[in-house]
């Protein structure tokens, strides 16, 4: 397999359930539109969540985005999903440990205000991941547009972003055609979601800019 350049690789650590799928697509489209290569556990076949594989992808990516949307317990056992915080920890550890290769990570959380309490401006993430106090996360409202806003605003500050960049509204407008292309390719693949098809659909739909 062709190894993508480290400096242009963005590891995406997020839920892969159907409820999150639109948001994952928003991340992928924004990442591709700004010239970065999204990498995630879905890329090697239908899914490969083995930890060594995830460590390999993280190690080979200069940048990483970690969405902690699933921070509450779910299902009969009321269990929270710990894989995403675990991978965030690895991302932070890699940055701290490897000085030769500069890395950068971003945490993304749903913007949920704490309704009760003394501080009217407090957010839930300040409670469930208080160790990140002082490091402002990217905050979305659970919509694809808000995810594009956050990922776009972050990627724009990186050294390897393409210049000029497509305007943000053009990326928002490209999202429905992008998702239609994914649906068409999925249909052709007899319902199977193939990461390469997601990437190709993003390439087709990404707004193009002049040199």
């Amino acid at each position, binding site marked *: *397999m*062709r190894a*993508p*350049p480290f400096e*242009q690789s963005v590891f995406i650590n997020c*839920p*892969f*359930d159907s409820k999150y799928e639109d948001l994952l697509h928003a991340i992928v489209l924004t990442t*591709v*539109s700004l*010239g*970065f*290569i999204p990498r995630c*556990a879905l890329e*090697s*076949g*239908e*899914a*490969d*969540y*083995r930890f060594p594989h995830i460590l390999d992808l993280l190690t080979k990516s200069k940048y990483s985005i970690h969405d902690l949307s699933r921070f509450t317990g779910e299902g009969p056992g009321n269990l929270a*999903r710990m*894989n995403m915080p675990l991978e965030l920890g690895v991302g932070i550890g890699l940055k701290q440990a490897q000085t030769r290769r500069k890395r*950068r990570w971003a945490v993304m959380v749903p913007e949920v205000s704490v309704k009760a309490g003394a501080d009217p*401006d407090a957010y839930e993430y300040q409670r469930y991941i208080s160790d990140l106090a*002082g*490091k*402002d996360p*990217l905050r979305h409202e659970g919509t694809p547009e808000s995810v594009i*806003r*956050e990922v776009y*605003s*972050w990627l*724009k*500050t*990186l*050294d390897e*972003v*393409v*210049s*000029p*960049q*497509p*305007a*943000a*509204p053009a990326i928002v407008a490209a999202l429905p055609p992008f998702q239609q292309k994914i649906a068409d390719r999925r249909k052709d693949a007899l319902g199977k979601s*193939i*990461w*390469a*098809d997601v*990437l*190709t659909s*993003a*390439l087709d739909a*990404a*707004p*193009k*800019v*002049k*040199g």
Partner: protein
Amino acid sequence: MNQVFISYKSTPKERALAGRLRSALEDEGIKVWMDKALEAGESWEHALQDQLEKTAAIVFLVGPDGRVSEEQRDEATAVFRAEWEKPEKIPLIPVITSETELPPFLKQVPAIEVTDMEKGWSNAAQKIKLSLGTSPSAVAASSSTETSSGESEQQARLLEIQRFADSLKSASESHPKEKLAR
């Protein structure tokens, strides 16, 4: 609106440089906001969001090591988020103290170089004052919606991503994986 925000790296040396720039800007009649204006217990994030509403430009001070710090990049992210639904962009003005390669987000306007550490700040402040009178859309036009007609950096990158997608597809077809729960 005649206020600027100074973004600088949080080291004693760069804080001192930011202080000199602040004084020079205030001498020009420009109101300056920087983190030392925070009150005890005040959230940096909320203060920054509030101040961006009143800010005509962000001055990014890049010190002698030529590096933009992570905190400065976080501040730039906050600026881009704040201007998401606004028709006018907030100009980002780089002020450098040595020759350096700036990241793309600081290439909207030419950098103001301060070489004379004694008199240079006053000149820099005058140039910043002058740029405040310039239309923001004229200085902050790094994004484009135009369709492609020539080779761009983005097109070269998209080609690279396509090659990667093709190689992924070949690999996944020859080695299908079992689906596991995350």
